[in-house]
């Protein structure tokens, strides 16, 4: 069974389809199960519900991967998690509508960050975009990306709370992206 660990994600999916043996998807899922659990806990805020969701997602994988073409499993799995969690939250009537909206927004923020891979190079457009951010977001992004400070160091330097630093970086990245896309669109 040790050999199974040497297979790539794609090879495991291929083997699963060929042999219809769940052991391959079990191995594949183990590689990401901890991440899946973390994401589930973040949005469901309960260990039991998160564990159930992990199990449900695994069952879903076993079905989906029989036919679904997957180019990059990790990204696909993350999107699948988000989709399942959103549906789970929608079904949970005990949750307030506003909470659902907030969760949806969080998903969207992360979607945005997937597009923005690097702001390390300060192009002229990026400089303009940075100067367009509010002070809090600009400071946190410059400290994190250009001075390579950790979240905690940024918090220490700025005096902001750790969560505020993280959200300032997150929101700042999103605003940078929006600004740059608008400017590029104008130039076209």
């Amino acid at each position: 069974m040790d050999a199974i660990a040497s297979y790539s994600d794609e090879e495991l999916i291929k083997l699963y389809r060929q042999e219809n043996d769940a052991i391959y998807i079990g191995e594949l899922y183990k590689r990401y199960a901890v991440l899946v659990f973390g994401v589930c806990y973040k949005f469901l805020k309960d260990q039991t519900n998160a564990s159930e969701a992990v199990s449900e997602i695994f069952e879903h994988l076993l079905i989906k991967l029989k036919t679904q073409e997957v180019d990059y499993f990790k990204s696909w799995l993350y999107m699948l998690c988000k989709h399942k969690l959103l549906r789970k939250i929608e079904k949970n009537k005990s949750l307030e509508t506003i909470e659902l909206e907030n969760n949806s927004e969080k998903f969207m923020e992360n979607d945005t960050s997937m597009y923005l891979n690097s702001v390390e190079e300060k192009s002229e457009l990026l400089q303009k975009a940075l100067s367009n951010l509010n002070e809090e977001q600009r400071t946190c992004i410059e400290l994190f990306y250009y001075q390579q400070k950790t979240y905690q160091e940024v918090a220490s330097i700025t005096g902001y709370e750790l969560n505020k630093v993280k959200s300032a970086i997150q929101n700042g990245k999103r605003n940078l992206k929006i600004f740059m896309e608008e400017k590029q669109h104008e130039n076209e």
Partner: protein
Amino acid sequence: MSNELIKRYLANELSNDERYAFELEMENDPFLKDAVDGFENFAKEDTSFSIEKTEKELFQQIDQKVSELKVDKKVIFMNFFKYAAAACLVGIVAFSTWRFILQKNGTIDEQAIYASNFKPLTYPDGIVRGENDTTSSSKAAELYEKEDYFGAVKMYEKLVAANPDNIKNNLFYAISLMATNQPKKAIDILSKITTSEEFHFDINWYLALAYLKSKDLQNAQVYFQIIAKDDNYYQVQAKAILEKLDGKLAVKD
């Protein structure tokens, strides 16, 4: 990104550079970032939280599910054979029941047909007992006419043993055997003399009846057909029996 690195990040065990690299990775990997956010929230709610424990529980959960699926597959596989075996059993029982009913019906019909058709042949008027026969032969005929068939069997058995080619003795020996409910012995006797012109139709008729009594419908049919195809004393009876046997020939012991 290894779980070990996540664990060390959460435990604040990474160097400053490692920590920064990890956080930069998180900014580029929303999957990782959301997961780490989840773990940080979990750790705040439950101080006993650990990545190793979570990982172990999740792996057990996955292994269990994989095992269940393997068992399910086996169960499905076994169920297939179980149901196939059950289907076969039902089929066998149904077939046997059908066969039994048919056979039973056949037996009832056979016995009824046999009973209504078997009558020991009247000893030929032209043959005078003791005229050309030995004492034993006369004695045998006498017993036969007195319907002492057990006695006749004993006498004819000796006569046939002494003179196997005597058609008349063979025939009456066989009829006596049939009258004493020994059709298979009668078949053995009659089968040896079927080509005889003497008592030709009698031999084939009693042989057919002996097969009928023995539930060998296929052979019975063969000999009834021999009787039925030619004009003879038994022809009408043979045809009637063949009609009754029609459809029962699939059942053969």
